[in-house]
């Protein structure tokens, strides 16, 4: 017996099922794919009580609209967009909060608007989607039509099957927001830094680059000062990673992202450190960035710090206050109480 489906009324611009990626098959040429912003994916899954690696909807630029064709489904949206809920049978449309779980009932319709900060957002459902894993993962690799929901981005009319029916209970919310970092994007030079002139490396580390329209889940082409090679841009094909920065013959860097091919034959000047990849993945065409070089050990430490931040956010997830019809008096009281509790204890002695 099925737990019901989400009926996709409007697909959004680029909505696909993603988990943390398809690992372990790259030696066979199978790309990893997976969430562009794994931090947000892990948090929305946690909000609805899922394993962090559960497949959820990754929403690019514009969100989908769907109707609940199930007894009930618990959802959480991570990102910034307007979430308009039209209750079953009509009634007042109300806005849902991001980063907070919510129970939707049969016939409810949720419309997710444009992504306002960054380019991606996530929608998790408690229990996940009832979609078979392909090569161990639910991530969609659209270029080859593999994984996820029929190997492609969602279309109007799709019916996404749910694993479990949700029941009434406490909702959960995040107490704080993700800090994606700021400033120049940190990179580790290499693997082919010796294939660029000193001037080329200086250009790369001092120029400001703009994201072109050719920025998608596969890679981000940058526009800006050309990076000078010593000789040619071709190498014998070799494995690449998310964050690899290829520089082809025209000298314009390309940052490889989640849907990258497993191997590539262009010289790579540097690699974006893993802690800065979610921030880069959230950027939009027209955004600008510059690069700064760090050592591998610094990059590893930054990643450990980011993981600590994520653990703090997860530990801080709390039972949500009911979000409907709080009267002003109640809100005022809540603020007073919370102010008193949060204040340093010494202040009151």
């Amino acid at each position, binding site marked *: 017996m099925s737990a019901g489906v989400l009926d996709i009324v409007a697909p959004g611009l680029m909505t696909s099922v993603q988990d943390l990626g398809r690992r372990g098959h790259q*030696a066979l*040429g199978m790309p990893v794919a997976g969430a562009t912003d794994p931090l947000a994916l892990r948090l929305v899954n946690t909000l609805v009580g899922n394993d962090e690696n559960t497949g959820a909807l990754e929403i690019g630029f514009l969100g989908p609209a769907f109707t609940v064709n199930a007894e009930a489904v618990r959802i959480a949206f991570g990102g910034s967009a307007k979430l308009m809920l039209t209750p079953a049978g009509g009634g007042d449309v109300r806005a849902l909060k991001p980063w907070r779980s919510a129970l939707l009932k049969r016939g409810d319709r949720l419309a997710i608007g444009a992504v306002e900060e960054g380019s991606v957002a996530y929608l998790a459902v408690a229990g996940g989607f009832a979609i078979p894993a392909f090569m161990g993962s639910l991530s969609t690799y659209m270029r080859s039509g593999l994984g996820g929901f029929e190997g492609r981005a969602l279309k109007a009319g799709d019916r996404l099957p749910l694993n479990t029916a949700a029941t009434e209970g406490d909702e959960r919310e995040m107490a704080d927001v993700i800090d994606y970092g700021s400033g120049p994007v940190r990179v580790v030079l290499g693997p*082919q830094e010796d294939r660029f002139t000193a001037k080329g490396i200086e250009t790369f580390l001092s120029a400001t680059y703009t994201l072109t329209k050719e920025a998608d889940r596969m890679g981000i082409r940058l526009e800006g000062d050309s990076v000078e090679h010593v000789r040619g841009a071709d190498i*014998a094909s070799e494995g690449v990673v998310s964050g690899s920065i290829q520089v082809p013959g025209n000298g314009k860097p390309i940052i490889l992202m989640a849907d990258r091919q497993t*191997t590539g034959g262009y010289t790579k000047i540097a690699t974006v450190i*893993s802690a800065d990849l979610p921030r880069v993945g959230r950027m939009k065409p027209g955004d600008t960035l510059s690069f700064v070089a760090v050592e*591998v050990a610094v990059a590893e430490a930054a990643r450990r710090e980011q993981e600590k931040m994520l653990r703090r956010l997860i530990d801080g997830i709390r039972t949500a206050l009911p979000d409907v019809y709080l009267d002003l008096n109640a809100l005022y009281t809540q603020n007073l109480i919370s102010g008193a509790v949060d204040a340093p204890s010494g202040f009151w002695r």
Partner: protein
Amino acid sequence: MSAYPQIRSFGDTAFSVEFGDGIDRGVNAMVMALHAALADLKPAGLVETIPSFRALLVNYDPLLTSRADLERLVRDLFAGLKPQQRAGRLWRLPVCYANEEFGPDLKEVAERCKVTPERVIATHTGGRYFVYMLGFMPGLAYMGGLDASLHLPRRSSPRTKVPQSSVAIAESMTTIYPWESPGGWHLLGRTPLRLFDAARAEPILLAAGDEVTYVAISTDDYAAMTRQVEQGTFDYAALQVKS
């Protein structure tokens, strides 16, 4: 330049180990030896390794290990590394050359190599090819060992659509396209097989380290095998030559 093996940085999630320059069986045998050694050892924090012509990419989880620790472990393996890799499989793959639609470049290859099309087919089926690596798309195998008489650079203008299962050559390599895709290699024929089939228990047929020979089949055989492949009844295991 420092001596091989040489380690190169790929940020904080990977490093590569280069064993030499160019496309060379001896160099690749060391790549495959380290690939196999790490698969056996499964050190903590190792995510996966990607073999290529002359380098092994070692992917790791920086929350479970560090570059310093894993690099030390890899360097300790160098001394014991023997270039005789784990025996790969030997495949006999059927190819239909007898259809101009399947091998639109056969005549041109023959002309440019100054031999007859029959000679091109005989040379291509007479070779024993080595899968150096997979990449570019799921299941695409770069197979080396093409006879020097057939070496040609890639086409100056790549095709926007190469049909799935096309058998092709370029430079010292031969390959079979697992998917319809753009491609710049010279198309000699087509196999009824699918190098990638999501419906198979093992969707990807070939692995790095395998060896491949081609056997010419008639258009009738091609049609019969295609039916079996489409019905999911084709016995892929029977293509392996038992040693």
